[in-house]
């Protein structure tokens, strides 16, 4: 089967000013290659604050003005140019962002989902999308600040199924949720994949990635250091890179151990505390 999304040698960088006028190119993703099949969930795992979100933005063609992406992004077998991304996002390609701050604080949920359209068809589809995730029509009348964490997350997922999604990019889909809600959200992803949608999950959480994804790519300091089927992660011997091994050991079921990071001597630990998951 043809992958819905194929990324080859993608590098994303942004320009930073440090101390006065000195400019610096910061590479957040270097030479990343991966493929997402229809009906498959692929996960990209990277440390918090490593600029993972920029990966999502580069696929959607909405990088901020100070960033650039190089490499090849193929959608449905054809290059995903800026124009094509513009035409497809919100129609076939959807982003599920990190949290409630991605909703306009001064606009009710309903109008926000409808994107300014007022026809009966749109209204119907948005209502159905909310209902699918257990949110009644009364949700449409709420402002984002009136939503609980779990509700906000479901609204964001619902925003992706107002149309027929073929590719969904989920950026840190579960921070701030308790285990049960997180599990339910991941269930929603599996369900969407089973309907034929390709899903790319971007997260800092290896455990989450392994729970939900079919294939996992781990990158560290911009470089891809591990790319394997989720099943391969069951045995630590299959993992090639010390960083992935450290992550593996830090998972609760593997002893919760903190391993010294071989690269710079600092300790690497699965970041349990970072629930806000805010990235660049």
């Amino acid at each position, binding site marked *: 089967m043809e992958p819905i999304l194929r990324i080859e040698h993608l590098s994303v960088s942004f320009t930073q000013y440090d101390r006065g006028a000195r400019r610096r190119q910061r590479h957040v993703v270097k030479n990343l290659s991966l493929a997402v099949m229809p009906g498959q969930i692929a996960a990209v795992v990277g440390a918090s604050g490593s600029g993972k979100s920029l990966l999502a*933005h580069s696929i*959607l063609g*909405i990088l*901020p*003005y100070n960033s650039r992406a190089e490499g090849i992004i193929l959608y449905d077998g054809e290059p995903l140019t800026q124009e094509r991304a*513009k*035409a*497809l*996002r*919100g*129609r076939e390609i*959807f*982003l599920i*962002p990190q949290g409630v*701050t*991605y*909703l*306009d*604080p*001064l*606009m009710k949920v309903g109008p926000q989902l409808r*994107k*300014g359209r007022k026809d009966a068809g749109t209204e119907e589809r948005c209502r159905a999308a909310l209902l699918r995730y257990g949110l009644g029509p009364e949700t449409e009348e709420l*402002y984002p*600040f*009136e939503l609980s964490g779990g509700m906000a997350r479901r609204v964001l997922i619902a*925003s992706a199924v107002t149309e027929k999604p073929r590719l969904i990019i989920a950026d840190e889909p579960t921070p701030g949720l308790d285990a049960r809600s997180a599990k339910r959200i991941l269930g929603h992803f599996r369900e969407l994949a089973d309907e034929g949608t390709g899903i790319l999950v971007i997260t800092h959480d290896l455990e989450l990635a392994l729970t939900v994804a079919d294939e996992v790519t781990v990158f560290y300091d911009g470089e891809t250091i591990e790319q394997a089927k989720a099943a391969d992660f069951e045995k630590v011997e299959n993992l090639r890179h010390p960083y992935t091994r450290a992550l593996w050991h830090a998972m609760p079921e593997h002893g919760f151990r903190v391993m010294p990071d071989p690269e710079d001597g600092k300790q690497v630990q699965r970041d349990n505390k970072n629930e806000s998951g805010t990235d660049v």
Partner: protein
Amino acid sequence: MKHRLWFTGKKLIRMALLLLGVSIVTFLLMSASPLDPLQTNVGQAALGSMSPEQIAKLEAYWGVDTPPLSRYIGWLLDALRGNLGVSLLYRQPVLAVIGERLAGSVLVLLAAWVISGVLGLTLGILAGAFRGRWPDRVIRGYCLLISGTPAFWLAILLLLIFSVWLGWLPVGLSVPAGMEAAAVTFADRLRHAVLPALTLSITGVANIALHTREKMIGVMSSDYVLFARARGESERAIILRHGFRNVLLPAITLQFASVSEIIGGSVLVEQVFSYPGLGQAAVTAGLGSDLPLLLGITVVTAAIVFIGNLIADLLYGAADPRIRKGAVRR
């Protein structure tokens, strides 16, 4: 609702304290003024030819012989009873002078306030939305240039261009000179108000546009605009639906806060255009040592500015769902 009442009550107490403070400072400044009211208003030559009794009478009229503290307390007690005294220069009750002058200024002030608000908001949104590109550069350049231009100088410039060279508009005053009051039409008043209002608008725009631009830049780089883009909303829709909506609330505050700048600016501008409004009366009162009138004008304008800000706060609470619903829930 109860919350809103309590909020308003607190603000009103604050206003009373503010007005007291403003009047004290005005009074102190006036007492420290090196101008001798007799010399300024009667003249050196006339004073020399007067008898000591006459001079004593004049001193009593201008309040020179009363100690400052008892003078201020006397004014304050009267003011609390709603009597702001009689203007020494106009020989009319201060409130009547202020009312008349305010009626003269209101056309100019209101027009300048509305024009600078609407124009400033529009330019600010455009500049913020096109950050770094040519519309932004043009608007920002204009705003910085105008911010660095004194209002009175701009007034003289406009006067030269539109009244002297082109002859389109009158040079000054609020009505045609030598015309009977009954014969003055609204169109006449309007023609005379154009230049002062234009000057105040042009200078007022800069501040509002620059502030709005900052807000707009914040909105355009926000998570929710990014998400709107990710969902395929067009740039136009983003600016109108999300940008405008989120900039409007701070714009309300800005708009009402700008009342003070418009009133402040009118003092100089009315002077240049010989426009008989409140601003000009303030200058006359200050230079002529007309203490009751100056205190009256200062207190009344301070109250107007304060009420402007109060309205902004109340509107904000009504317009922002986070405050409105938050207050209901409490």
